[in-house]
């Protein structure tokens, strides 16, 4: 059992790790900040507001050494949540171990390294799909020989469910991803190593509140994995075909409204992955009750750890053999999921496999999420405290001063920038230039990229430099947004809004046009996607360019596209820095009069500051009724264009 940790600076995180290890924690789980995850240094424009925010910044080997100072790496099992830049962070880890006198063959741990789900959900990709897959395959081929106790990749279905996947989609897209990776690795390793490669691949899955079906999902995955090993990759050793997985339980369904109810949800979700012994999770991470409010504080995390401990040590959960053995109902459920997943896997294969099918899978997820939201809006799907049983006594949990969340010191960013400048000034620049030139050469060849990456780490290159060298070689990339292809719903709830949009468009002379923008590195795209699709279905023209835009890019789009309203979505916590930057950029571009609205994880305490920066309205997860948001937008645009006499205002009260 461990808590997901790491934030602000390498020193602070090191203190935290050492504290946890002293308390008996056995492994390390490293969360990196978004610039590190996407290959930007702290002084890059896109890093603004994100340095040290959701994890620790690691810009070079010096940071990695500080992070791991005094921690015996030959005895550690280290899990790193890192993907696009995984090869680089592993290289830094290997170099830090080297400096401790620990050889690569003694290192144990896991890099997440599943790039497909980054395009589909998580958003921290850096390079186009094909070269990204090559990086992964290079890493697998390298570690299987040089770092034999390392799990180079963890196939993630967790993030797919968080982006709206149904159980069938979760199974199918994860298995398709595994196939894509294994197919890419196969020609790079000796035939007899394939069984070992297969056995080194583990999964990171999700478990939602429909916990019986979720349990069946895991059983179905185990069946498919075994089958895949046997039939496609000829793995004969049964133990190498065991389906191994870790879990983080569902967070998408955790609510801002009556957040105490999230505790029940989390416990039930934990049952999904522990009930039947045959497919019991190896490691379980539980989110906190205040998930939809912001980052959890130590006490919130402790509560989640205690939930797990009650399950494990007070109940009889772990005392029996598999309790579903012989269950006809469970077998039936598993069979249904298997049939659905096989059909979906075949569709992905028809697209040419997971890499080629990214745009298809992405739009399929956007559609599933749209359906989920529609069901919540209409009340077909009950969410207690949110769309049913909404009356509540005042909550003592959210009454304390800090609003019930952790806040990161904004000064960290400045400190990191200064430290980086000092690092660059002190290193042997010629050695860095040489190492990066060699990296560029290797990137353009078909040699394994790991040795040159490790050499660049040793020479003192930075995360941003490593990634930029590869961006130059591979090309930069924007993932598909999935929204354009998402089928329009003949949704009755939007019917009234459509009439309002039509009337307003007539009055304006051209169709109401909205820009939905995601500034900064935040990859949480669900909200922006759903708002974009709903606005289109309400009859608006929608400009949506996906994640990772600078304030200047957003302002240029708003100006050139002639939009009537700008909607920004931020969930990562960087709204305090980024929203005022965007409104300033809009003013500078000469479109300061276009109204700006904001949505995402915005603590109540920050709303006043955003309004002062010129924001017209703020929406958070409790505003789950998107049709209502659409009506607000119509009213806002009417008002700002001196058309308040139109339909908009009166129909709002209906």
């Amino acid at each position: 059992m461990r808590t997901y940790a790491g934030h602000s600076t390498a020193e602070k995180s090191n203190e935290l790790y050492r504290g946890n290890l002293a308390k008996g924690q056995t492994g390390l789980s490293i969360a990196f900040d978004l610039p590190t995850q996407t290959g930007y240094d702290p002084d890059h424009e896109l890093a603004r507001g994100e340095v040290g925010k959701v994890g620790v910044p690691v810009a070079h080997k010096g940071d990695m050494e500080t992070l791991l100072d005094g921690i015996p790496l030959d005895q550690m099992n280290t899990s790193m949540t890192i993907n696009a830049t995984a090869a680089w962070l592993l290289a830094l880890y290997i170099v830090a171990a080297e400096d401790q006198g620990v050889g690569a063959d003694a290192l144990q741990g896991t890099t997440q390294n599943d790039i497909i789900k980054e395009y589909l959900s998580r958003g921290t990709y850096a390079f186009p799909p094909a070269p990204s897959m090559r990086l992964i395959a290079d890493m697998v081929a390298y570690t299987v020989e040089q770092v034999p106790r390392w799990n180079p990749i963890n196939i993630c279905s967790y993030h797919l469910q968080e982006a709206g996947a149904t159980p069938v989609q979760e199974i199918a897209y994860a298995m398709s991803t595994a196939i894509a990776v294994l197919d890419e690795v196969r020609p790079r390793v000796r035939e007899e190593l394939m069984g070992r490669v297969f056995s080194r691949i583990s999964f990171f899955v999700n478990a939602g509140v429909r916990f019986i079906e979720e349990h069946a999902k895991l059983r179905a995955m185990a069946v498919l994995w075994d089958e895949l090993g046997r039939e496609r990759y000829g793995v004969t050793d049964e133990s190498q075909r065991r389906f191994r997985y870790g879990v983080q339980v569902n967070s998408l369904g955790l609510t801002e409204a009556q957040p105490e109810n999230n505790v029940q949800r989390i416990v039930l979700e934990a049952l999904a992955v522990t009930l039947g012994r045959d497919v019991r999770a190896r490691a379980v991470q539980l989110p906190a009750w205040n998930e939809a409010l912001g980052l959890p504080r130590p006490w919130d995390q402790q509560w989640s750890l205690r939930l797990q401990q009650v399950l494990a040590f007070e109940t009889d959960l772990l005392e029996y053999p598999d309790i579903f053995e012989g269950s006809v109902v469970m077998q039936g459920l598993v069979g249904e999921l298997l049939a659905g997943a096989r059909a979906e896997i075949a569709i992905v294969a028809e697209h040419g496999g997971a890499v080629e099918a990214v745009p298809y899978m992405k739009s399929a997820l956007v559609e599933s999420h749209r359906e989920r939201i529609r069901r919540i809006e209409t009340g077909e799907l009950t969410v207690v405290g949110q769309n049913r049983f909404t009356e509540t006594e005042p909550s003592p949990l959210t009454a304390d001063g800090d609003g019930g969340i952790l806040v990161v010191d904004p000064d960290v960013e400045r400190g990191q920038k200064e430290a980086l400048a000092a690092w660059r000034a002190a290193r042997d620049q010629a050695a860095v230039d040489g190492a990066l030139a060699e990296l560029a050469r290797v990137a353009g060849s078909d040699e394994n990229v790991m040795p040159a990456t490790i050499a660049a780490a040793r020479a003192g290159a930075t995360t941003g430099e490593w990634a930029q060298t590869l961006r130059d070689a591979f090309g930069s990339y924007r993932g598909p947004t999935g929204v354009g292809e998402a089928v329009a719903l003949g949704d009755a709830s939007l019917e009234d809004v459509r009439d309002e949009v039509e009337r307003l468009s007539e009055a304006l002379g051209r169709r109401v046009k909205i820009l939905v923008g995601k500034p900064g590195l935040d990859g949480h795209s669900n909200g922006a996607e759903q708002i974009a699709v709903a606005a289109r279905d309400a009859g608006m023209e929608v400009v949506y360019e996906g994640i990772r835009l600078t304030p200047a890019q957003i302002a240029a789009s708003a100006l050139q596209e002639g939009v009537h309203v700008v909607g920004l979505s931020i969930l990562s916590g960087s709204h305090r820095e980024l929203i005022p930057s965007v409104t300033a950029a809009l003013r500078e571009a000469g479109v300061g009069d276009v109204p700006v609205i904001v949505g995402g994880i915005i603590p109540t305490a920050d709303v006043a500051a955003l309004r002062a920066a010129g924001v017209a309205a703020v929406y958070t997860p409790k505003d789950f009724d998107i049709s209502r948001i659409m009506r607000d937008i119509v009213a806002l645009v009417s008002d700002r264009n001196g058309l308040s006499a139109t339909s908009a205002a009166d129909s709002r009260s209906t």
Partner: protein
Amino acid sequence: MTRDGADLGARLRGGDLTVAPAVLNLVENRTPAAQPRIAALLAEVAPAALGGEAPGHVIGLTGPPGAGKSTLLSQLLAGWRARDRSVAVLAVDPSSKRSGGALLGDRARIDFDPGDRAVFIRSMAAGDRLGGLAPATRAAAHALAAAFDVVVIETVGVGQSETEVADVADTVAVVVQPGSGDALQFLKSGIMEIPDVLVVTKADLGQLAVRARRDLHAALRSLGARETAVVAVSAVPPAAGVEELLDALDAHRARGGVAARRLRARRLHALADFAEEHGSRGMRALGGRRAAERWLAEQDPGLDVAALGRGLAARAGEGG
């Protein structure tokens, strides 16, 4: 109240690129009140006011969805900027739905410096007409060509539907990806008009692209189209063919014939506006599309779009 239109037109004429967003906001305005303002704008950028055709090079970039047009535009844009040319892009998006709404995402594929005022990109929804132009595209291209060195119209087109962009552009580049085969079939069967430049994208795909280029080249020669350049490009590193394509576009433009195409464009623009306003009833009153085109061809080449429009309306017996 036509002064703001005239003012915008005058500023375009003077090379002021910053008015582009306002120009688009105006030409997209469908209200009756906006129409005289639009006419005033267009009058300011008509040959009579400019003392000749608008200097910009209007390029139509068309091809099936996913062929790589937007990604290629990103490279072309960089190339034109390196040659110090200002560029306006009109990205016509076909994705409109029944609701009338549209998701406009193409600009995401086009990389440019947001601080560069010599680049302007506007997405336009084409309504439900696949491959067609948006109602305001002609006026926009017409106006922007007075100030920008290059005006690109990106449209979706396969087979016959690229003809609309050919009505507006000085140069039409058809973009196809290797292995699709459609373009080859359409060319051979005469469904597709012979483009000025044919672009095969994704040259990084190797043999497939080489073969596609060779086949298209052979087909064009057998049709006697020796002037049409066939260029293979790759937008992923190592990028290739972009300079060659830029040169091919320039070469087509240098071969002349712009005045004739612009004249035709103005006439068809007037007809498209007429059809937009008066529908099929109006077209019937003109004796059908072909009769209307014949009549337009006989008019004074010096007439601007508004004058031609008035002529059409008078002829249909609906206006004055």
